[in-house]
């Protein structure tokens, strides 16, 4: 069985999704092969552009564009150095607009980063946050009196812990624990199940009435990011109206409901635009001829398919995503065996301390690409003329320490799709 596409994208995380969007926007016949539920299950929902640079100095940028300018000077190989500011800005604008049309609104301050508290009570600097989290950003700025709510049976999200850890920066927080207003078997409460339950107006009203008597002086109420799988903004507005004060969501541990909202919104809207999703399937090989990719072999259980294509875009992530594979002494690219930029020995992969602010050298490993986002082969030239690589798979970046994951995904996806079109 064979299908024909303009562009086959391998990977269903943010980078793959963004690439699929940019491609569909430019009328390309596109397929996305995603072996797992995708990285979005682990995505907190907030979108970073650049938070920290240089990481060793822990310098935090209020204006990420200035940070990026400094980053390009200091790390000329960082993927941001391959993308012009105008393209970077355009990628955000197009992408956020698309999300907004799907009912997911993102907010922030023009050209500036914002700060919010995490589900652990620490601070996170990011660029754009879902509208459901925005009142928390303002609340933190103004140190408003706020009530943090958790539910019995949530093991990783404890309001008392958030209050304790955030106290130095947000002293006027108060913690309260409620029973989740819907009975599940057992004592454990899971993010996705709770989010689903809150879709019901009845459950939502029950939640509102259990919070109402506890409000007291609170001007704001923080809840874990589990308020609905769909229409979260509406549900929170509904809660706010019933209780009489604004609500905000706090990003929590995975499985992440805001991540799922992104995934479902993107998948739904892209499918209706004609993007083909092959989920639960693994891209096992790319067939090539000389310097040209011709097709992608996709395998599932009792299933194999050949996708003929004019271009291939790798958004396969790192070790967790399956884009990179680590043998005992060597890092490999998993699908085509492309050369991986990496430290010389395993001894150099990681530092002696896990939380070393300089980050682990292995995080800078990955695929080196040319200015068209094409992976570089052994001979120093692009490996294949129509093969592109985007997102966390790329070398010379540490998105976890630099807080640049979403920006990296959007910018490189945008640049790769543009290059592909220009080359056609």
């Amino acid at each position, binding site marked *: 069985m064979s299908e024909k596409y303009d562009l086959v994208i391998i990977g269903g995380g943010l980078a793959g999704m963004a690439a699929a969007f940019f491609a569909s926007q430019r009328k390309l016949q596109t397929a996305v092969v995603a072996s797992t539920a995708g990285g979005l299950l682990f995505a907190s929902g907030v979108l970073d552009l650049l938070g920290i640079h240089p990481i060793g100095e822990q310098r935090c940028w209020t204006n990420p564009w200035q940070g990026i300018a400094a980053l390009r000077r200091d790390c000329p190989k960082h993927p941001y150095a391959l993308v012009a500011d105008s393209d970077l800005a355009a990628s955000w604008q197009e992408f956020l607009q698309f999300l907004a049309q799907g009912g997911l609104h993102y907010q922030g301050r023009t050209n500036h980063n914002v700060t919010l508290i995490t589900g652990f009570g*620490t601070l996170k600097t990011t660029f754009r946050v879902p509208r459901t989290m925005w009142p928390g950003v303002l609340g933190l700025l103004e140190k408003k009196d706020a009530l943090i709510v958790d539910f019995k049976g949530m093991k990783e999200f404890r309001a008392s812990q958030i209050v304790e850890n955030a106290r130095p920066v947000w002293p006027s927080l108060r913690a309260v624990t409620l029973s989740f207003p819907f009975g599940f078997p057992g004592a454990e409460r899971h993010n996705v199940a709770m989010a689903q339950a809150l879709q019901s107006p009845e459950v939502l009203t029950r939640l509102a009435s259990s919070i109402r008597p506890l409000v007291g002086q609170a001007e704001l109420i923080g809840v874990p990011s589990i308020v609905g799988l769909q229409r979260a903004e509406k549900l929170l507005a509904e809660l706010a109206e019933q209780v009489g004060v604004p609500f905000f969501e706090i990003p929590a541990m995975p499985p992440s409901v805001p991540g799922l909202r992104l995934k479902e919104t993107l998948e739904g809207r892209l499918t209706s635009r004609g993007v083909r999703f092959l989920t639960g399937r693994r891209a096992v090989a790319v067939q090539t001829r000389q310097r040209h990719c011709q097709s992608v072999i996709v395998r599932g259980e009792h299933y194999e398919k050949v996708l003929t294509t004019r271009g291939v875009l790798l958004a396969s992530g790192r070790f967790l995503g399956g884009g990179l594979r680590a043998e005992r002494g060597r890092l490999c690219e998993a699908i085509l065996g492309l050369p991986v930029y990496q430290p010389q020995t395993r001894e150099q992969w990681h530092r002696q301390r896990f939380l070393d602010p300089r980050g682990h050298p292995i995080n800078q490993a990955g695929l080196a690409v040319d200015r068209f986002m094409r992976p570089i082969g052994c001979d120093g030239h692009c490996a294949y003329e129509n093969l592109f690589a985007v997102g966390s798979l790329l070398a010379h970046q540490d998105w976890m320490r630099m807080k640049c994951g979403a920006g990296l995904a959007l910018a490189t996806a945008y640049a790769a799709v543009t290059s592909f079109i220009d080359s056609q």
Partner: protein
Amino acid sequence: MTGSRELSGYFAKAKLLKAAASYRQPSTDQLCRCRQGAFRTSYLTTGKSLRRKGTVRVETQVLIIGAGVTGAGLSRDLALRGVANLVVEQADINAGASGANHGLLHSGARYVSNDPVSARQCKDESRLLKRLAPECIEDTGGLFVAIAGDDENYLAEFPGLCAEQGIRIRELQPQEALDLEPSLTKDIIAAYLVKDAAINPFRLTLENLDQAEALGARLLRHTRVVRFELRGGRISRVLLRQRGVEHDVAVKAEQVINATGAWAKNIAALAGLDLPLVCSKGTLLVSQPRITRRVINRLRPPADGDIVTPAGTVSLIGTTSVRLAEPEPCDPTINEVDFLVSEAARIIPSLAEARYIRAFAGVRPLLFQGEAAEKDRQLSRGFLVLDHAAEGVNNFVTVTGGKLTTFRLMAEKTADLVCERLGVSAPCITKKVPLQPRKARQWTEAGKPARKWLQGGDSNDLLLCECEMVPRSAVDQILADLVAQGVPFDLSDIALRSRVGKGSCQGAFCGLRLAAYLSEKKVADFRSTELLSRFLEERWHGLRPVLWGTQLAQEELQEALHCGLFGLELESP
């Protein structure tokens, strides 16, 4: 004493004595002294009162330094003889070699060629422990296997050497060995069944201490010996300092025992003494899942990378032997890990591709026996009880060397000497009195929580550690003990008493859940950001050298959460 303790004071004593049927009733004097407890002051009965300023004075009969398995065994041995004692430990129980070993209860066969005394001791002690501490032991049996290319002279001598020491073995045909352990290599040329077993060193030490504490002994964890005051050829006072506590503790003890394993040299130095001790680092690997049912030994003179021991749901692969100048730092290295993988894969080929979730290293205290023994592998695994009276310190004894398997004997010999000095005539009864299993201690056992859960765990009991299935109720039991001891504790203290953090996530999720739980219960002594960071760093030492394959993907997720989302690497506000 905590509320949950099954045994307490006098009744415990009575129960234990009953168990030792042939044992003569101790004198009233001894019993009274024992009931009085380790201290002649009432201090420490309410945990938090520890945090006073100034120096707290304490008196006890015997001060034991070191809460490894030897110190714990000593505390119990002495308590059973009616001798009040106090154990101090700079870190936590089993912080040295007692907690970083194969968990192997040796049949003795490993030492028949180069260390016959140790071989015989192992044979006798392992037989005893199987009877007295069955809850700490999985009687797996063991195999010695030789593969093509191994020293054939040694093969030929092995049965005779075992017979000389009275160690029973049974020869197997290579195919029989393969039927028993299908993961073994097909290159086997000889195989013998032996009576090796797997022992859980954490439960062993905790239960020794439990019994001692039930008889009035006390344990001070996270308490460092700062100084000995010497007067008239004796240690007149020992100054201690506790973690997170502002005051010092001054202990006046009639006898002082140095049971600090690889640290024995450093402690003896505080009394101006020099010990002929060598530190030998041994690194081990943890594979998940468990590879074999039995203990597998390579049939050759003891060397590196030749033992694979099952431990509940995992296998432990080791060891190496590297001379260190000091017992710390002692982290496993990447080279050692790589060496172990390739060496162990020669007897069990699948180990080349197995998933390793952790590595760890411990320091053996070996007795230096002159220049004759060139390699540390040739140094005796025997133990030594050193009476420092000969060197002018009359109430100071060091016990060191030895093996996990022989800890009871080491404690007996040391306690004999100390009791003679104290004028206590009560004999050792640890050969007869079994340990008293305690429920709270079962959580140290790999696989036990999961089995309990599957057998109908309480669904209202949240699993705080999902990899190893440790429920909140288990953490509550452990917390009750820790809170009662009054010494500030962190997540590592809980992890040591359970399987928390020991599964494949290595603390990434359970660490956060525990920190959250402590913060919710308001029993934490540290901020929860600090609790989590410390725990992750502690786990990191053992994780870093095994980061490839699946475990590296696991680590990436951990970093994405703790750094990417929570920014734990950044200075907290």
